[in-house]
């Protein structure tokens, strides 16, 4: 069963997808090409926002809002604070745009990766119809985290603790001496 292009555009969900995909892609493109690191971070917000909206449109409310809260809310702020406290020079920075001799190989590599993965995905899933499903209630996810996934959950908490402590020890200004 193949879907013709005309039929594809008749579907409302596909228009929603296009509307979300365009800002997501543009945001990602500008994140990489921008010469100003603060702007890069702000474009990343656009891109992540698009991704979050896409999760919401797929009925994965929990994942969507996690992206909003954790990535847009926390990680982006962390980026900005990180830029501030390391006193990195704000504004345009020539070094951010890479030397032109690595641009071509990098572009080629990304492009071939894209073609490979896109071809693989189309080959595997293009004819798979997704059954309508009930959105997963968040309480189910909570129950799973504290039963089936309790070990990885606890391990993650120690990863975060270690990252916090190690980060402080490494970032703290000192004259090379410990306490």
């Amino acid at each position, binding site marked *: 069963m193949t879907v013709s292009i005309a039929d594809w555009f008749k579907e409302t969900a596909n228009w929603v997808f296009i509307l979300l995909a365009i800002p997501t892609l543009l945001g990602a493109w500008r994140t990489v090409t921008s010469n100003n690191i603060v702007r890069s971070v702000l474009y990343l917000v656009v891109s992540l926002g698009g991704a979050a909206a896409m999760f919401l449109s797929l009925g994965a409310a929990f994942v969507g809002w996690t992206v909003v809260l954790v990535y847009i809310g926390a990680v982006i702020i962390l980026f900005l604070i990180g830029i501030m406290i390391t006193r990195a020079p704000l504004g345009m920075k020539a070094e951010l745009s890479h030397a032109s001799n690595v641009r071509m190989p990098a572009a080629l590599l990304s492009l071939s990766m894209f073609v490979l993965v896109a071809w693989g995905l189309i080959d595997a899933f293009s004819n798979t119809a997704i059954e309508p499903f009930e959105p997963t209630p968040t309480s189910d996810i909570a129950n799973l985290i504290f039963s089936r996934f309790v070990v990885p959950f606890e*391990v993650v908490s120690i990863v975060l603790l270690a990252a916090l402590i190690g980060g402080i020890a*490494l970032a703290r200004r000192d004259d090379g001496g*410990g306490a």
Partner: protein
Amino acid sequence: MLTLDYHALLPELIVAGTVLVTLVVDIVTRRKHLVAIIGVLGLFAAAVPILTLSFCGSLDFCSSTEASRVMFGGAYVIDGYALVLKGVFIFAGFVALLLSIGYLESDRYYEGEYYFLLVASVLGGMAMASSRDFVSMIVALELVSGPAFMLAGWRKGDARSNEASLKFFITGVIALALTLFGVSLLYGLTGTQQFDQIAVLSETVADVPLFTLAVIFIVLGFGFKVSAVPFHFWTPDTYQGAPPPVTAWLSVGSKGAGFVALLTVCYLALPAATDVWGPLIWIVAALSMTVGNVVALKQTNVMRLLGYSSIAQAGFMLAPFGAVAASGAGDLARPFQATITYFVIYAVMNLGAFGTAIIIGQRVGSYELEDWGGLSKYATGVALSLAVFFMSLAGVPPLAGWFAKFAMFRATIGVGNWWGYSIAIVAAVNAVIAFVYYAKVMKSAFFDDVPEGIDVDVAMSDAIPAPIGLAVGLAVVGVFLFGVLPGLAANVGNFSTDLLGTLGL
């Protein structure tokens, strides 16, 4: 209601408790080596339930007479394989901690947090050994490498240490992204992320190109972690720049975690794709041996030399696995056993080699080979211990390394077709090349003259710190024990695969 098998989880619980206690003790005391001692005791205590769990299967009065304890519907399994690896991680963490005590006393960076991070990293390795689904495994793998990234850059004031940390971090994160991408594709295809279910469900999608792509991504991602060629570029710089005790942990703990991930995933989750990862691992193994050894020939810095040597050793470890899988010869249990045997022996001798290198480095003040000239003339004991570990790495009997190589050759030649014979030939050539540079270090230490500028009296003025001495002594005993009684190491390898067999895989 969730019921947990606390006996089975006890080793992890003890180490997790130790992690938290080290943090508290670090706050209340100014004598930072107490933190390390607590870490050492915690790891020692965690070894006890590992022993009781190992023998529980053969005892009647045990609460569970099952040989392997399966939890969370097969997502977390305590079997012989997991127990052996947990033991290796605990031993490696134990030795790395002992090496650090002496090292950090001579350095002026934060100590308490350092021990905390090291024990946390060990915990990651232990959780990793039992993980039988991708969520647990990748989270545990990150607990191994996350602290390791920071430990590599612990000497903040040293540009080399910064470089070590940053290179390790960036390649590590790229590798993780690659693996996660592969895992997400696999999840999309099979609808599960638990290994035993993937093994069943992936048979129906084995012909889909995307499945092949997912397997390649996963194997390549783990390839970075084990620093196999061509994903090894970070290794020499990181090994040279990181504080030496951290390098010792990286070369066994962090690399070992990568091995465990690679072997467990390939063996348990992807039997349907042996025709993909088999040749891939075969090529990676052959390249790692050859490139690692040939480049090691030219090294003048002992830490870099050990870095390349560990790349080459990774190749030896993967060789049997790649050969059997590539030829589709079916039974993966034997190469699995050879690889685990090799890994256990490698852990002991490599930790010993690093320990000895640290002792010499501290006395001579340099890791450049030319400064190590004539070591035997003023530090005979240390030079002998250097000889023990380097000859073991080279595979000279009666030191443990020979049996590791023997098990590897037996498994590769045992395949009985050209995949096996050809990689056995590659390995044999490489064993000879490896002997040359290990012997070069020996020649320098035993036959060269003491170079100008090395003040023998200064170098010999301090006694060897007791913790380092203990660590190296343990490794010496291990190397001789495994070398003289190779059955011991083979039993460890057998023990791990026998129980894997009982899982019906």
